[in-house]
């Protein structure tokens, strides 16, 4: 008999495939994972604590840094929470600009996911193709907000800047371009047998598991749960657009891949419609009180970020700083299921599963 023993392997916090500073303590037997213990908190910056000393408008840039791949949705969730509390009406043009920014951001975020996921699995080129197309979106958002990653674009009651001249035209032209590129992605990757082998049946969980673990976004929809906050609790002007909630039944990494790929197309649909309906003119910032002082009380709003359900809870004591601010960070919730998924898996599947969950560590650690 050969004497075998289990080995303790430390994956991360410095590891190429953990997408940031995420650490996994693995107990492995050969290449089979017996037990996985995630360790997080390396990127905890205490956003919620800092926010207690800041006025609401000053918190917006901090939200950018949580989910830095879709900063627009983070901006929005805070503004939306405050607007809900002070019952502020947002001008229509601002709402359209917000939706355009958020949906473009969603595509950009999914593109990063697509690129890095394929990179994890070992294909190098899709990463660069995805980043090329993301660059177009970033340029568009840059023109809009002046930032490339942390936009700080939205304000309570509207947006910071109106769209520059010709911007809408550029967005309009971007839609068919992006559709063509997505076709290309499918040609390159979706039909690839190796990729299918790597993703199909990997990291499978059931509907019940997904719901019990409070997963959201594509991680939940890949099990066939039709849950998208843009549909079930329409916020902003999402009830004006015709789009589908993409679901799959299998609940594996492949279903998650398909969900995200199709979500990009649905987002393009929304962008297309928003461009068509875009109001000719109008203000982009509502009648905001000079100092925002939500009434005493609390509010919790949630919206659909590319990674799932992002929520913002504000408890106010009537001051200009929040008494307590809390973000429901989708990656944090989504990551919980990881130890369960990794148990009994091959080491090589580790990255395929972890990548498939689509985490952003800035968000996980808050």
């Amino acid at each position, binding site marked *: 008999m050969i004497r075998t023993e289990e*080995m303790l*392997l430390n994956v991360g916090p410095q*590891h*190429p*495939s953990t997408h940031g500073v995420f650490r996994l303590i693995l107990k492995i037997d050969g*290449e089979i994972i017996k037990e996985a213990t995630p360790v997080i908190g390396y990127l905890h910056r205490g956003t919620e604590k800092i926010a207690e000393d800041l006025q609401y408008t000053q918190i917006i840039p901090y939200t950018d840094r949580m989910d830095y791949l879709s900063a627009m949705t983070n901006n929005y969730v805070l503004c939306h929470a405050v607007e809900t509390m002070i019952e502020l009406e947002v001008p229509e043009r601002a709402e359209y600009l917000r939706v355009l920014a958020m949906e473009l951001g969603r595509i950009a975020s999914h593109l990063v996911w697509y690129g890095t996921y*394929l*990179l*994890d*699995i*070992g*294909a*190098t*080129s899709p990463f*660069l*193709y995805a980043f*090329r197309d993301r660059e177009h979106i970033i340029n568009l958002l840059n023109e809009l907000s002046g930032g490339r990653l942390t936009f700080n674009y939205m304000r309570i009651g509207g947006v910071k800047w109106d769209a520059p001249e010709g911007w809408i035209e550029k967005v309009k032209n971007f839609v068919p371009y992006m559709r063509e590129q997505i076709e290309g992605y499918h040609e*390159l*990757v979706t039909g*690839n047998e*190796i*990729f299918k*082998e*790597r993703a199909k049946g990997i990291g499978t969980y059931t509907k019940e598991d997904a719901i019990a673990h409070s997963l959201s976004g594509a991680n939940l929809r890949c099990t066939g749960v039709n849950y998208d906050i843009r549909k079930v609790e329409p916020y902003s002007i999402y009830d004006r657009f015709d789009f589908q909630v993409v679901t799959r039944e299998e609940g594996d990494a492949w279903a998650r891949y398909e969900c995200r790929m199709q979500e990009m197309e649905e987002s393009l649909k929304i962008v297309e419609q928003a461009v068509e309906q875009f109001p000719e003119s109008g203000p982009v910032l509502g009648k905001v009180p000079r100092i925002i002082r939500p009434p005493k009380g609390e509010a919790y709003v949630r919206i659909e970020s590319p990674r799932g359900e992002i929520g913002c809870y504000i408890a106010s004591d009537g001051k200009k700083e929040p008494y307590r601010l809390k973000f429901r960070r989708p990656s944090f919730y989504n990551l919980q299921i990881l130890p369960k998924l990794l148990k009994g898996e*091959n*080491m*090589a*599947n*580790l*990255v395929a599963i972890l990548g498939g969950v689509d985490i952003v560590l800035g968000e996980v650690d808050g």
Partner: protein
Amino acid sequence: MEWIQGVFTSSPTIESFAIYLLITVPFLLMVLGFVTYAILAERKVMGYIQLRYGPNRTGGRFGLLQTVADVFKLLIKEDTRPKLADKGLFILAPVIAFVPSFMVLVVLPYTETLTFANLGIGLLYFIAISGISTIGIVTAGWASNNKYALMGGMRAVAQMISYEIPLLMSLVGLVLFAGTLNLTEIIEQQQYVPYILLQPIGFIIFFICALAELNRIPFDLPEAESEIIAGYHVEYSGFRFAFFMLAEYVYMFAMAGLITVLFLGGWQPIIGLGFIPGFVWFALKFSLVVFVFMWIRATLPRLRSDQLMEFAWKVLLPISLANIFLSAILKELFF
């Protein structure tokens, strides 16, 4: 050119040793030059596939001195060694990996005359020697005293041993057709029809196995960047790392050369274009093979280790065995 042939076959004297040295040292330098520019070419080709420029600063617009600079950097880098590493093996491993990759070059016939050792069992020699580099890799993985390196080493052993079997089996059909293991003779028999046409199945299997033996995507599991970081050479730095790197590319040179020799007809020209010298043909075919290697690397994702094993034992081995029988029948009926 005749006299080179004469020197190669003459009995060993001091004089022939000197001549030998005079020819082989430039040749080794040529191989190193190839490695330098193969790395550059790989980066350039992948750059163009991936819509970027690749190296374009060091050494002019095409980054001609980029690899030179890289290797020089590796040379002057601090040579780190983990405290708990097995010192002897840690130092020995890169050498074990490096030497066989050069040793196999000796049997490759580049032109009719430029063959360093025209061995009767050239093919067997090539496969046998190339297997030694596996030992270097597993030694590196073990000696580093690093869990990732160990996993990389284990993966490398499992993979290389598994793929050596179909690699050899896929050649049996070809050897049946050729009736010899001498590489020069194999080329000579492809004067009209290269073996890629007579042995298509064998070619495909051999090509796949060659990729696996080279540890290149989609079979780069031993050094899978995203899984086990860099596998067996994770703890190596400086020139020891350069040794692994060089071995990999020299081995790629050798494999591409072997494929050119076995299946593409080596120096044999396409019929009607015989006025172009043989070494140009060899270089062209050889470059084509190398390019395909790079192309695949830029396109495919990586396999998983269990899939890799299954693929070797359940798919490639049976097909290569069937190929032997098919070749035997064809040989019996038509040749």
